C-alpha cells in the first residue's frame, strides 16, 4: 500500500521504453535497479518515520499523542475524499493528481534512461510526489508496530515485511513484461480497475480512520 499508482505507472513506462531501446537482458538489469532504488527509498522513509514515531511515543504525554491521533483521523478522512475525487484526473487514461510538468518530467526521464544509475534514480524518486497519500500510512503502521513490539518483542520484525510489501506490484509487473505482456495490456488493466482502485483506497483510508477512533484515541 505504500506505493499507490505512481511508482507502478512510472515503472510500466520505464520498462516499455527499455524494451523498445535495449535487449531483454539489459532491460531486466535496468528494471532491477529501478526496483532497488524504489525499495531503498521506501525503506529509508519507513524506517525514519518509525524512528520519529518512537521518539514521539517515548517523549510526549498521552494527551499530545491523542491530539496527534485526531489529526491523523482528520487526515485520513481528507485522503479518503481526495482518493475518491482527486487521485485520478478526469478523462481517459490513468492520469494522476500530480502536476503535469512533473508527470512530463517522469515520462522524459523514463524515455531517456540509459544507465543503471538513471534507472536507480528514477525508481528512487518515483514515489516522492505520492508521499501526501503514503506518509500517513507509514506513521500509522510505525505506531502500530511499536505498540505491538512492546508486548510481543518479535513483532518489530514486521517492519521487514512492511518494507518488502511495496515492491511486490513492481515484481509482478516485471514478471508480466518478462512473459510477453506489454504496456497496452498493463495500461488497459489499470484503466479497467480505476474505479475499483478509487473505491478501495477510499474504503481503506476510512477504515483506518475508524480503527484509530475506536481503538487508539
Amino acid at each position, binding site marked *: 500500500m505504500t506505493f499507490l*499508482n*505512481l511508482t507502478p*505507472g*512510472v515503472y*510500466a*513506462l520505464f520498462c*516499455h*521504453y*527499455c*524494451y*523498445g*531501446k535495449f535487449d531483454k537482458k539489459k532491460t531486466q538489469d535496468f528494471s532491477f535497479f529501478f526496483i532497488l532504488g524504489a525499495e531503498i527509498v521506501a525503506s529509508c522513509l519507513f524506517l525514519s518515520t518509525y524512528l520519529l514515531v518512537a521518539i514521539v511515543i517515548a517523549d510526549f504525554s498521552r494527551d499530545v499523542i491523542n491530539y496527534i491521533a485526531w489529526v491523523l483521523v482528520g487526515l485520513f478522512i481528507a485522503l479518503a475524499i481526495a482518493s475518491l475525487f482527486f487521485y485520478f484526473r478526469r*478523462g*481517459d*487514461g*490513468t*492520469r*494522476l493528481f*500530480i502536476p503535469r510538468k512533473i*508527470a*512530463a518530467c*517522469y*515520462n522524459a526521464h523514463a*524515455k531517456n534512461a540509459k544507465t543503471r544509475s538513471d534507472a536507480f534514480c528514477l525508481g528512487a524518486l518515483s514515489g516522492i510526489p505520492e508521499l501526501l497519500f503514503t506518509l500517513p500510512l507509514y506513521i500509522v503502521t510505525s505506531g502500530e508496530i511499536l505498540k505491538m513490539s512492546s508486548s510481543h518483542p518479535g513483532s518489530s520484525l514486521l517492519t521487514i515485511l512492511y518494507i518488502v510489501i511495496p515492491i511486490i506490484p513492481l515484481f509482478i509487473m516485471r514478471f508480466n513484461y518478462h512473459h*510477453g505482456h*506489454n*504496456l*497496452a*495490456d498493463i*495500461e*488497459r488493466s*489499470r484503466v479497467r480497475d480505476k474505479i475499483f482502485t478509487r473505491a478501495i483506497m477510499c474504503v481503506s483510508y476510512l477504515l483506518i480512520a475508524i480503527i484509530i477512533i475506536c481503538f487508539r484515541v
Partner: protein
Amino acid sequence: MEQLFDEKAIRKELKIDAKGIGIPSGAAEIFIDKTLSATKQKLKSKKIITSQDLERIITTELKKYNADFAYVYENRDKII
C-alpha cells in the same frame, strides 16, 4: 517540399513503441511507413495542423495494423 511534421522524430518514437510492445522490426517498419505516408496524404489538404490532429490521424492509421500499437501511441501521455 515543405515538411508537415517532424517525420524523423515521430518515426523514432514509433519504432521504440513498436519494439516495446513486441512487434517484429520488419513488420513495424511496414506499419510505420504506411502510417506516415497515409498521414502525409491526409494532412496535405489542411492549412493548419495541431499536434492533436496529427496524433489523431496517426492513431487512426495505426489502428488498422495493430490495436496495441495504436493504444500505446494514443495513451502514452495519459499513463501517469
